């Protein structure tokens, strides 16, 4: 057997042994001691994959981590480490529902930012901890978009309206919203706002009227949020760890990050998916495809 062949075989064998051993060690109940799972929620919460250089949170990843932590007998509690401005209402609600279904104590730790949809997620935890200067609250929904009809008109470009179904092009940036459409739009946003208020009211055990008063879309500093009842305690990660320990009735624990790691292949497919999308569509086409592609952001 040639030297090269021996080297290659040994490298492959050792790599397999290392992978199996690391997997085994990672899965054993580390000498039987208690764990606290830390699940980070960073960037915009959305159902679509973020790009190569963007940070974002996908509900499926968080739900998967929550389920994994919930199933793991050595995990005694969970810390949601939040630094997010929010995201789409549906994605945020999905995570919030998964948090509520978790049987283990969950503490939400808002670091820099935990606003809007991210606050909705935090509110579903058993306890919310924030820094006095954290930005939180911002209970509201928006679906604002840029409207180009005036600009197009300036350049002599007309919008030829061809629709079957009178509201099919509602929200198109190529045409002005009429009063009826605006009312319709606002009605839907108000409905979503109502859902948001209802959720916060249930999760935080606050009267709906009080939440409605606070839900102007304004953000609150951690210290203000505490006075308003939107946050339970002011503090940092150490406090969050101690609170989880109290809730779980344990004295010692190891922090373990539960995070879906992007494999090299994931990163490549993420890049290729995004680049294909933008290159394939081309600027012009994506511009026209604005029709009904707006998102409702919480």
């Amino acid at each position, binding site marked *: 057997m040639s030297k090269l062949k*021996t080297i290659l075989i040994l*490298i492959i064998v*050792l*790599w397999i042994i290392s992978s199996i*051993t*690391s997997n085994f*060690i990672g899965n054993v109940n580390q000498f039987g001691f208690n764990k606290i799972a*830390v699940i980070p929620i960073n960037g915009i919460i959305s159902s679509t994959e973020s790009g190569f250089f963007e940070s974002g949170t996908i509900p499926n990843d968080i739900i998967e981590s929550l389920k994994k932590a919930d199933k793991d007998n050595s995990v005694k509690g969970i810390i949601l480490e939040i630094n997010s401005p929010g995201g789409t209402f549906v994605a945020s609600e999905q995570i919030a529902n998964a948090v509520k279904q978790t049987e283990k104590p969950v503490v939400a730790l808002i670091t820099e930012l935990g606003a809007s949809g991210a606050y909705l997620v935090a509110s579903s935890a058993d306890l919310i901890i924030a820094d006095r200067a954290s930005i939180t609250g911002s209970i509201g929904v928006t679906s604002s978009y840029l409207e180009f009809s005036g600009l197009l008109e300036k350049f002599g470009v007309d919008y030829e309206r061809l629709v079957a179904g009178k509201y099919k092009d509602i929200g198109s940036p190529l045409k002005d919203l009429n009063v009826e459409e605006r009312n319709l739009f606002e009605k839907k946003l108000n409905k979503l706002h109502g859902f948001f208020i209802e959720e916060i009211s249930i999760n935080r055990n606050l009267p709906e009227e009080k939440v409605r008063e606070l839900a102007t879309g304004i953000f609150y500093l951690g210290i203000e949020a505490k006075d308003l009842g939107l946050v339970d305690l002011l503090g940092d990660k150490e406090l969050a760890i101690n609170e989880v320990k109290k809730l779980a009735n344990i004295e010692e624990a*190891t922090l373990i990050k539960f995070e879906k790691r992007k494999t090299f292949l994931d990163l490549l497919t993420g890049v290729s998916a995004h680049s294909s999308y933008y290159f394939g569509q081309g600027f012009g086409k994506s511009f026209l495809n604005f029709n009904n592609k707006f998102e409702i952001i919480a």
Partner: protein
Amino acid sequence: MGLKKKKIASLWKRILAYIIDIIIINIIIVGPFLPILNSLNINFTLKHINTILFIFLVIFVIALISIFYWSILEYKIKQSVGSLLFNLEVNSKFKKLKFWQCFVSNISKPFSIIFILDLIYFLFNKKQRYFEMLSKTELIEK
């Protein structure tokens, strides 16, 4: 026909061969363990004796597999990837190189500080590292 005189491998060739092997070990052996080590919150966990033991276990396993990387290659082909590139070869003081010799000779390699001390020993001794002396081996230039 005169016998070719064995030339002991120089210090810089030993160091370069070691660096190449360490790069390979980092990719194939340390790499799979990184997710476990990264998932531990080191600042927090260092306060807990159980976790320190766990980290030591991981380091021990990595070191053991690394020693096997050097030992098996040296036992089979008398060279690791690094020493192959610098034309170095392990020689036994016995008739035939035995596996235990390869194992003992490489014990210091996964632990950089011990390996540096081992090399300092070589600097004074000019013939062998301390663990080469224990294992009755020597590293020569082919």
